[in-house]
């Protein structure tokens, strides 16, 4: 018997998926957020700088989306087979949004009379992608997914409801906050000031959405209430909302600070603790109310191979991305290409 036969691969994949999706949400979060803030930028020059600040990073950030989907598919095929049909519409819309904003990177820099089209496409695509991600999250946590005999049996718009609209808008606001903090860190002058100004409204909207979601889920979903309000467990989970609240207040305090990295760092803490809280609410369900991660798991041999691949691939991707961020460290330098239009 191999030593691996007693290893809890389902828990491993759940943690791996949480890490990969968390990386996706925080990294693509700031770059979708910059797109969400695009229409509010005061001048064209600021929009040029905003886009340039993302240019080296944005498509690398989306690596984690692909990897996250693959981890879910390989680790939890039974849950994947339910979730993908259940969220077909918002997932398709999200991908169209990502296509729109991806192409806007290429075409907007060409200038000319169509520039306004690509400016709008970038903003709209970012907004749609962020909203759909939030709506999927809300539907996953807060709405019952209809499953009969291990197969999704609901309608294409089952995901849509007041709760998922609130979480969708909440994620839009949260990404906007990350985007504003990114601009504080990576840009200077008027663009940075714009980021600092926008940090407050996005922070307020994020806080409102998080408060509504955190307070309403325990009432809407009884087992989440049981998770959070069972006595000794409450003590274990309590640090998460406390750290999140402290980080939220911290962003408020440091948004005009000289330490330009501080707002982004605190916003990331806010995001990661929220995600951890969410994970604690859902654990150990792969499809809430339907199946656990152990019921949804793939066969042992697949688990061994995929787990090995993850252990090899994730450090490599992390290493080259860190290198990329290191190469393009410091403030975004205006590229000479921006002058020739």
């Amino acid at each position: 018997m191999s030593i691996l036969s007693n290893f809890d691969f389902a828990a491993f994949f759940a943690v791996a998926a949480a890490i990969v999706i968390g990386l996706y949400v925080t990294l693509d979060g700031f770059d979708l957020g910059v797109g969400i803030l695009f229409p509010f930028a005061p001048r064209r020059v600021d929009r040029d700088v905003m886009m340039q600040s993302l240019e080296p990073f944005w498509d690398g950030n989306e690596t984690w989306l692909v990897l996250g989907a693959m981890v879910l598919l390989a680790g939890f095929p039974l849950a994947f087979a339910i979730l993908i049909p259940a969220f077909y519409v918002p997932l398709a819309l999200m991908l169209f949004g990502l296509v729109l904003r991806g192409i806007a990177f290429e075409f907007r820099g060409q200038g000319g009379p169509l520039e306004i089209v690509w400016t709008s496409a970038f903003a709209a695509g970012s907004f749609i992608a962020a909203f759909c991600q939030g709506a999927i999250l809300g539907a996953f946590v807060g709405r019952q997914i209809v499953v009969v005999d291990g197969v999704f049996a609901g309608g294409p718009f089952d995901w849509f409801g007041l709760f998922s609209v609130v979480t969708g808008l909440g994620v839009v606001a949260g990404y906007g906050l990350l985007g504003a903090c990114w601009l504080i860190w990576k840009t200077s002058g008027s663009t940075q000031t714009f980021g600092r100004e926008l940090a407050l409204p996005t922070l307020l909207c994020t806080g409102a959405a998080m408060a509504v979601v955190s307070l309403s889920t325990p009432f809407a979903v009884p087992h989440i209430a049981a998770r959070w309000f069972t006595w000794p467990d409450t003590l274990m989970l309590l640090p998460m909302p406390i750290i999140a609240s402290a980080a939220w207040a911290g962003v408020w305090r440091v948004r005009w600070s000289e330490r330009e990295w501080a707002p982004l760092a605190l916003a990331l803490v806010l995001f990661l603790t929220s995600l951890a809280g969410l994970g604690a609410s859902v654990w150990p369900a792969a499809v809430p109310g339907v199946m656990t991660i152990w019921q949804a798991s793939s066969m042992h041999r697949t688990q061994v191979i995929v787990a090995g691949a993850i252990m090899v691939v994730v450090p490599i991707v992390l290493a080259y991305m860190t290198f990329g961020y290191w190469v393009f460290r410091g403030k975004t330098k205006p590229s000479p290409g921006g002058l020739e239009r």
Partner: protein
Amino acid sequence: VVYGHLRTADAVSPIVGGAVAGSIIIAFLLYNLLLLGFLWYAGRLVWRGPVNGAPMPPAAPSAALVGAIGLRPTNWSESK
């Protein structure tokens, strides 16, 4: 889909046809719009022509290149 194990008809996702048709139509329209966008910029690039002052590619093989390959244009008649 999996040879000898699973037929395609048995592997279909339980998605309403309308949702799939809708996404295909959106994809079709979106990609055609993007093609138009590409043609617009490619056409503009061609229409404007080369930037003034940029080096033009040589119309005929340069003397240096011909020499490097070892060809002499005058040799063609003599070799026969």
